[in-house]
């Protein structure tokens, strides 16, 4: 029982984790991309479509990453080159992604999906409890953890991370030191798009292997909230993602027990209510948030030539 719950928590947490880590890098570079939901849903539909047409889940995942990056490039062009309003452009990205995914996905409604296989490591995967939980996941689950580790290391232990944080904290100084603020930010935005696309493909190729319109159901927005929750620290994203993964599978497990007499809608709304609650608790503590908030978050930068 506990094992089954833990397994569903892992699958529910993985897309949140990946999308949130990507957005964390974007925000560390000083850009607020509210279009995570749009990039994610495009990843979901393109991943499903390509996997369906080619019969290869791996190709689907790569196509989804590409779709996320294409969406991110569009966003980057608008907010970095044309200096458009970041909040409004992010919203536009979500609206566009929702529309486009509906159009592309119409042909795939009700089509049986393709589930990317779980890894099987002889010996390790057979250990009771630990095996299924730790060593029998699909590759994306491990990629998620790897991403967190790489991002955490890069941000705080490498020159690249230092440059990224400098650009996010004070773009004028970074510019004066000779770093190309726009280029660093554009690459960060692309990385965020790739992560959101990957998270989306996990939704349609692993979490529920099928295409349903709007299947990301606000997870992109929850990922945005997770970045605030983590106060821009990668390791805390893991804690947040698993917390929200747990909340979002409550519904699934409660419905299996007939004696639980709670309206399913109330359980379905828990992740959204939990997001609000967490935002309140985190934001109320200004000292905690202000320390790590990138100082130039959401501020436009026009190079002074």
């Amino acid at each position, binding site marked *: 029982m506990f094992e089954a719950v833990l397994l569903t928590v892992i699958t529910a947490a993985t897309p949140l984790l990946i999308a949130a880590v990507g957005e964390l890098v974007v925000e560390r570079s000083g850009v607020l991309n*509210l279009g995570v939901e749009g990039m994610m849903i495009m990843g979901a539909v393109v991943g499903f479509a390509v996997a369906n047409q080619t019969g290869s889940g791996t190709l689907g995942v790569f196509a989804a990453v590409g779709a996320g990056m294409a969406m991110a490039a*569009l966003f980057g062009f*608008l907010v970095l*080159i*044309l*200096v*458009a*309003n970041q*909040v*409004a*452009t992010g*919203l*536009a990205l979500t*609206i*566009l*992604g*929702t*529309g*486009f995914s*509906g*159009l592309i996905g*119409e042909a795939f409604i009700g089509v049986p999906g393709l589930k990317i296989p779980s890894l099987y490591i002889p010996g390790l995967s057979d250990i009771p409890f630990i095996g299924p939980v730790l060593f029998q996941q699909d590759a994306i689950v491990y990629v998620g953890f790897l991403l967190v580790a790489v991002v955490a290391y890069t941000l705080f232990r490498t020159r690249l991370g230092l440059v990224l944080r400098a650009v996010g904290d004070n773009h004028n100084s970074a510019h004066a030191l000779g770093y190309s603020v726009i280029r660093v930010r554009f690459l960060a935005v692309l990385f965020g798009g790739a992560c959101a696309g990957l998270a989306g493909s996990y939704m349609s190729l692993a979490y529920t292997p099928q295409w349903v319109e709007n299947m990301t*159901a*606000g997870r992109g*927005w929850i990922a*945005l*909230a997770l970045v*605030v929750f983590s106060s821009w620290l990668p390791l805390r994203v893991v804690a947040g993602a698993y917390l929200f993964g747990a909340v979002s599978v409550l519904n699934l497990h409660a419905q299996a027990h007939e004696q639980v007499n709670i*309206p399913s*809608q*109330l359980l*379905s*709304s828990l992740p*959204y*209510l939990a*997001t*609000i609650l967490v*935002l*309140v608790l985190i*934001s*109320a503590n*200004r000292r905690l*948030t202000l320390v790590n908030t990138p100082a130039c978050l959401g501020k436009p930068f*026009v190079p*002074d*030539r």
Partner: protein
Amino acid sequence: MRLELVKRKERSRTMALLSPLIAIALTALAAAIIFAVSGHNPLVGLYKFFIEPLTQQWSLQATIAKATPLVLIGCGLAVCYLSNNWNIGAEGQFIVGALFGSALPVMFPEFQSTATLPLMLVFGALGGALWALLPAVLKNWFNTNEILTSLMLVYVASLILDYLVRGPWRDPGGYNFPESRLFSDAAIIPNVFGGTMSLATPITIVIALVLAVVLARTLKGFEIRVMGESPRAGSFAGFSAKRLTLFSFALAGGLAGLAGTMEVSGGLNQLLPTISPGYGFTAIIVAFLGRLNPIGIIVAGFVLALSYIGGEAVQSAMGVSNKIASVIQGLLLFFVLACDTLILYRIRLASHQAPSGETAHV
């Protein structure tokens, strides 16, 4: 070669008016490409989508009916965005408004008098305003990001609607279908002008005009614009950012709630699990396309409503999915935001070698 932005000395008034038109032209171009790629004649597609709905009386009426909630919600959102309050949860405020407005005809169907409809409209506006005040209060008290909280409340609102129409508010004589009882005649918003238009439309236009005057000619309008552009300057004038956050959210929520009530009491005449084709989100596009100006929003609301009707038209005439409507809506917002760059900047192509001259330094 690369793009280079050169800041203008002041905002270009010409571009402020031209940019939405350029955006619409670019959107039409993009739509033509989408039609061509999906194997249809792009010119026929554009005609069916953008022009034909304007040539027939029924489709013109349908467009106006769809434009009405968009304009009403868009006006409220404009006040929020002008004052730098990012309310993106109008869809939820629309739904909760519809729920409050429907409480009377659903729970007390015997109460049928001339007061029924006015009471419903008041309740609807109240419900929407209360729902919108949640993110505003959280922003003021806890410094919570209103973008995320207002959006989260959209999901909660649609789940509450779902619960009510499947549970306590389900029509007792409705064979277990997830829908409320039908409203009585006293609870239905009447048609005017010989039955061609819902009373909701003139109400909306009057509200938009009043708001236009308030924004352009009154102290409150000045306060909204100053606090949006320079909160520090506004605070020296004695304006309170927190009070304005409450005001703008309550106003936007109230208008969205009113739109929700008029939608269920006008078009649907009952509550269903889904009562909006995304009006609350489309209204965000309306607000931006309309330059955050109520008069502009009336025009923009009509344009966006046309995209709903046009989507249906190309689906029935050419077999193109009506999902193309939301793609075109999304593209339109993108192009509007991109073209708005022209208001503050001039764009020129510069080669990498030659550094720009003295004009670049402003």
